[in-house]
């Protein structure tokens, strides 16, 4: 048995993050068998033992790539430091999940620099039902954004079927400066209710409240979980193929 291979496998399994010991052992045994078979073949071709081991590891792949792919397909929680996290709760540079948090997040509830899905919060948000953030596009719902468009759009510079904002354009629009096809008070009742709420609500106060209630705790949770993942990974030997 090779110590180098065992340390490589340690690292693979660290990324694979299998909770079940039985599963982890089976995966490890299978990977070990593959690596040792390759080592034996390389040795038969004339490589020295050490060279053969490193060749086998090189052909097997970076431990992060191999390990991440060996993770369960769609776990409850998937936190990654690289690549795309996929899970019910997904946290990573890219995240795909029911609740997705990341640089680019795709999910039912997506929070990130770029967020896409049904409900989203972020710098740039493209969602179906609700968006809150800097820029947003919401074709079938409410965009509550600095700049954007939606079925109902509320914010700084907005366009929509119903629009309310500093600069608003739409079928029924009202605001500091408005471009409206019809008078805003002729809008359907449900739409007026939403824009009335936006008008009566102190926008800045509302945004601050939203920030405190949702965004900051989520951000902190995301950072904490990523930090925990980093610490877990850092606890192993970082030397091999890094």
């Amino acid at each position, binding site marked *: 048995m090779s110590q180098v291979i065992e340390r490589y496998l340690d690292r693979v399994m660290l990324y694979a993050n299998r909770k079940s010991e039985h599963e982890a052992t*089976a995966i490890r045994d299978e*990977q070990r068998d593959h690596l040792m078979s390759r080592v*034996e073949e390389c040795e038969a071709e004339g490589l020295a033992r050490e060279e053969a081991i490193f060749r086998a590891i090189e052909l097997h*792949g970076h431990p992060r790539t191999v390990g991440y792919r*060996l993770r369960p397909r769609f776990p409850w929680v998937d936190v990654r430091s690289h690549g795309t996290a996929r899970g019910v709760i997904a946290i990573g540079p890219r995240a795909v999940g029911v609740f997705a948090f990341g640089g680019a997040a795709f999910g039912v509830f997506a929070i990130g620099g770029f967020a896409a899905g049904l409900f989203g919060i972020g710098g740039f948000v493209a969602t179906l039902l609700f968006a809150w953030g800097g820029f947003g596009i919401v074709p079938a719902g409410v965009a509550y954004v600095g700049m954007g468009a939606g079925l109902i759009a509320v914010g700084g510079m907005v366009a929509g079927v119903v629009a309310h904002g500093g600069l608003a354009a739409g079928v029924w629009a009202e605001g500091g400066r408005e471009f409206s096809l019809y008078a805003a008070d002729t809008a359907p009742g449900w739409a007026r209710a939403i824009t009335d709420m936006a008008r009566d609500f102190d926008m800045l106060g509302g945004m601050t409240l939203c920030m405190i209630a949702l965004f900051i705790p989520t951000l902190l949770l995301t950072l904490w979980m990523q930090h925990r993942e980093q610490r877990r990974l850092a606890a192993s030997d970082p030397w091999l193929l890094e």
Partner: protein
Amino acid sequence: MVSVMRLNKKTLDGNIETLLLAVLSEGPSYGYQIVRELGERTGGVLKLGEGTVYPVLHRMQERGLIAARWSKGPSGRPRKYYRVTRRGGTALKQNAQQWAGLVEVMQSVLGDAAAG
């Protein structure tokens, strides 16, 4: 020429399972042997990251396309052998037919351009 052709990941996506099923349809095999077999049959054109074959095999096992059993290899190490299930056999047949159809269609459209 096939020998200099580079197959990128997108070309392979969705077809690796078919290739694995095809190799396994000839008899039970284990990961390392499967990787070697694929490499040899494609003249080295198809080079998979060796460690990345296993997640695909595990997924196929979860979906019932292949089954696995452990036994001892010649060196005494535990070794996992895979074989195609009935479901996998059906999937292989369907995929192979689709491929044949696709190749025929592509050939008829590309004509000589495919050879050049």
